[in-house]
């Protein structure tokens, strides 16, 4: 019996999405096979990692990752420049956390100014994220989209409860858009349909099926991502073909494993390595399940995942 490589070919294709501008622009997606199986399909773009920064001091981040940025995190422009120039970030994700009613409730106008300031300070592509407050994001992201007009940013996240205004703003100002639903392939599909019914091009969408940290429901995210990929490739379902984003950092850097000191849990080993490894392994498993764009926090975790990605392509 001789071995024949068991290849599978698909009719579907993951849509390629570009963001940013000029020579710093990036592309994600475009593959015609399951993650990294280039023996049977095309993998034109490798997963991209964006560094997360916030528009306010990251008081809610644990020390391991907060201390990395302690000299720069007082000001989003300084922080963004640090990521681009010192950490060699390929993309930056600016989270407008201070617009959340519980985190300062800053206005949409304030947020728009921050976006403008950051955009004029860095050249790498920008992802602009709201505070994940359904009502507030509806106004904040509209102002942010306008402020970032002509910069080909990724705006997010549009959810079932607020997608209409955010979609309209992304459409008007020519941005890419993250559509987020909660760990359910059918909800992800439904939201993508609703958004495209508004005239938004599906080739400008990015799906966020909701991330989860290792040990805290990672298996759900992992399987929803695999199922979205299979639906897009094997069943050629056009609503399931946008690239996938994994918002890893915000889920990882709040769980006990990245926060609890070794004194409190001696069985878990050193806190710093544990936290970095937690973000690294969560992100690694996300790219294996089909994630095209990762949003992460710790530079050492980013470095390790980039090393693994370069081994995978």
């Amino acid at each position, binding site marked *: 019996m001789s071995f*024949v490589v068991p290849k599978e070919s698909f009719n579907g294709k993951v849509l390629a999405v570009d963001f940013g501008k000029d020579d710093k622009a990036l592309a994600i997606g475009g593959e015609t096979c399951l993650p990294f199986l280039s023996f049977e399909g095309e993998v034109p773009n490798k997963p991209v990692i964006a560094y997360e920064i916030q528009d306010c001091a990251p008081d809610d981040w644990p020390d391991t990752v907060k201390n990395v940025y302690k000299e720069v995190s007082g000001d989003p422009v300084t922080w963004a420049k640090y990521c681009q120039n010192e950490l060699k970030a390929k993309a930056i994700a600016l989270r407008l956390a201070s617009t959340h009613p519980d985190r300062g409730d800053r206005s949409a106008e304030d947020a728009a100014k921050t976006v403008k300031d950051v955009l004029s300070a860095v050249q790498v592509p920008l992802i602009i994220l709201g505070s994940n407050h359904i009502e507030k994001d509806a106004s904040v992201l509209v102002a942010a989209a306008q402020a970032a007009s002509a910069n080909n940013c990724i705006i997010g996240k549009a959810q079932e409860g607020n997608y209409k205004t955010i979609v309209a703003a992304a459409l008007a100002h020519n941005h890419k858009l993250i559509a987020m639903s909660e760990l359910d392939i059918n909800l992800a599909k439904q939201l993508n349909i609703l958004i495209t019914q508004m005239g938004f091009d599906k080739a400008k969408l990015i799906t966020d099926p909701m991330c989860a940290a290792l*040990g*805290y429901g990672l298996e759900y995210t992992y*399987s929803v991502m695999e199922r979205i990929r299979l639906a897009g490739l094997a069943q050629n379902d056009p609503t399931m073909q946008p690239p996938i984003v994994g918002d890893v950092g915000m889920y990882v850097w709040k769980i006990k494993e990245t926060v609890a000191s070794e004194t409190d849990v001696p069985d878990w080993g050193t806190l710093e390595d544990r936290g970095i490894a937690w973000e690294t392994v969560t992100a*690694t498993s996300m790219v294996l399940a089909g994630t095209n764009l990762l949003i992460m926090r710790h530079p050492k975790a980013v470095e390790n995942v980039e090393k693994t990605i370069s081994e995978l392509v």
Partner: protein
Amino acid sequence: MALTGVQIFKLLPKTNCKKCGFPTCLAFAMKLAQAGVDISACPDVSEEAKATLGAASAPPIRSFILGTGDKAVKMGAETVMFRHEKKFVNPCAIAINIKDDLSEDALSKTAVEVAASEIDRVGQKLRVDAISIEYASGSSAKYEAAVKLVAAKAPNAALILNCKDAGAAEAAVKAVAARKPLIYCATDGNAEAMANIAKANGCPLVACADGLDALSALTEKIKGLGIEDIVLDSGAKTAKEIVEHNTQIRRAALKKSFKPLGYPVINFVMRDDSIHEASIASVAIAKYSSIVVLSSISKWKDLVLFSLRQNLYTDPQVPMQVEQKIYEIGEPKADAPFMITTNFSLTYFIVSGEIENSKVPSRLAVMDCEGLSVLTAWAAGKFTASKIAQFIIESGIADKLSTKELILPGQVAILSGALEDKLEGWKITVGPREANAIPTFLKGRAS
């Protein structure tokens, strides 16, 4: 090809004698079709039927036990490519490789670390399962001594004898034969000698070749020499090779019934940087490896890899559950907030995590609702006012509290009236609908 339950039923004695442990021959046939039982459980089946069934019912990926004793690891027998289709069956073994030319102290230290690596996570006991001892000294006497030392210091760990020198391997295998070490490895050059050692000592054997063509030929050769329990090493080193080779191996076995690759896989993932090694190990864990061999272990690394393995090998149909009890978070005094939720592990993790984030010491009652989340448990009639009241009363928690106040998840605010009736003397407060609002809620109460 696999037979259907009905096809198998036709080959059985149809006596419904129950000796196989199933109520009827048909029930037994159905279980056989799912590869959930072995044909040998039927004492009356004809030799002819056994031969037909044996060929057809052998699982597409061979299953056997790595190591001995109650910490031995079952491997192989996987049935799907993706975990949402059906549960991944046998969680991979995690192993560490050590070289025999280390000092006795260093060898002992690692072996003891492995022996003490067991931790409890969500009710499961997880550990580093195996130690690979690599022949690096060039002295078979030193190798045998190192193997014996490690075996003695880690009495429950499975052993992998990483030695391509047949002479040195033979002596070491004999010394620990009772532990059924996995012999690494047979290559095209030494296959006969290694197969003889494995056969004489009843040990499983790794077949190692460069690429899947050569590997298929090698496993056929070894099988021809009488070895059934084979582990595959395709020579995959980079993350890409691990993903591609392991995918092709599993596909060939499951979808093409290609027997020469129907065995568990071993991957060596050694890297200089320990966190990067954890990342490559997670590639192997996610992508079908049955034994993942590391160059170093540590408590944080064990925890992160155990967690990934546990996550990916959970049954997608059965929710993970935590124990029903009243958990203390921080050091709650008598006047600390007292909240309740259900025992779906994810619900528990998220709620307890947010309570911790609030830094307000609290008590959290976790009620057994068969692993359902709050709203689902309520809809299924498992998280009702009377059941909650019974749980709270039987827990005796009232004695520990200065004010009898229970904070209910906002999703089930509808229960508050009925609960006030059933829990006499208690104040029922409706908490936030979403866990991420808990810190604000608790801090607001505290101030």
